[in-house]
């Protein structure tokens, strides 16, 4: 369920949509659910931006490594 992919906001239209780039694929994505600005990394599901991405995967893994230390 719920295929979603992070992309980068290239343009914000005044029609409720934004142009989001995924390594060269451009999707017109609805932006009604998230406050965004150009350059934001966003998660897109079914043509709709559902969240901004707070950190890249590498950063996320680093923070998880630190958090998971608590278990050992």
């Amino acid at each position: 369920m719920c295929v979603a992919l992070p992309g980068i906001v290239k343009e914000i239209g005044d029609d409720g949509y934004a142009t989001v780039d995924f390594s060269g694929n451009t999707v017109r994505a609805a932006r009604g659910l998230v406050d965004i600005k150009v350059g934001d990394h966003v998660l897109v599901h079914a043509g709709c931006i559902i969240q901004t991405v707070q950190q890249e995967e590498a950063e996320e893994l680093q923070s998880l490594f630190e958090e998971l230390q608590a278990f050992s």
Partner: protein
Amino acid sequence: MIITMAHGSGGAATSELIDEIFAKAFDNDVLNEMEDSAVVPGSGRIAVTTDSFVVTPLEYPGGNIGRLAVCGTVNDLLMRGATPKYLTCGYIIQEGTDSELLKRVATAMAETAAEAGVKIVAGDTKVIEGNGGIMINTAGVGFVPDGVDISATKIAPGDVILVSGNLGDHHATILGSRMNITNSIESDNAPLNEMVMALLDNGIDVHCLRDVTRGGLATVLKELSDSSKVTITLEEESLPLNPAVRDFCGLLGLDPLYMGNEGKMIAAVPKDQAEAALALIRKAKYGEAAVLVGEVTEGVDGHGDLLVRTAIGGIRQLDVLQGEGLPRIC
């Protein structure tokens, strides 16, 4: 000119269509005889194949159905080690087709045939009711040099699997236009003569060649592993993929291993010839991104398997494509 049912009548309108479009585009001495069948020179072991082409849209970034109809058949001949020589083509045209479109398709077909070194020696045109569609069938004839024996059953333990370039480009191009996703991905539709001939002319002991078309690399290799009763193990991290195609697949929940190409092939060659074969493919047209993707070992219990060693060291077992490979979102 808009194609109507009259263009399929066999009368003057049909002649006009053939003269104006096909005879001009495919002009060659055999076809120009306009006989009921083409008589061509040649002897030895003959490779014959046929393929029908339907694609939506008819024109797409990187090509059109005319180029596709040559590449598909030429590549099928090449995959048996044959030198492609002659093509026939049958057009089924729906009424309503714009003759300008038909010209572009025929021109692309002629150019691609010239590139692939084949002559279009016979043809046929039919017009059916409909809404501007074109379907093409091509049959191809080639000659297999003595001593060449390339087949799906000849992959052996100790072989390596080479792929001539990035996966999924054609499929992503076609699907992108249907799903409102814009990108710079172009179809890879191409005739693979140069790389195949380079391998054969330079003494590479090619065990098997197969063009990676519908169903993608996984389907092709699973079928080959079954035919040859071997285990093929791919390295996930070495699979060649254009980042745009990778993300395109990510958006639509598709797996690049099941995405089709129209100008890529796999080659199974003995491990000690891998470097030489790779260098030859990379030097040939359309082969720059060729890589070694996997190895062949003995089959287990007499049957074939296709495995992928994943980035985290896991093993994934693959089957042929099931169903249509539709995008999933949900």
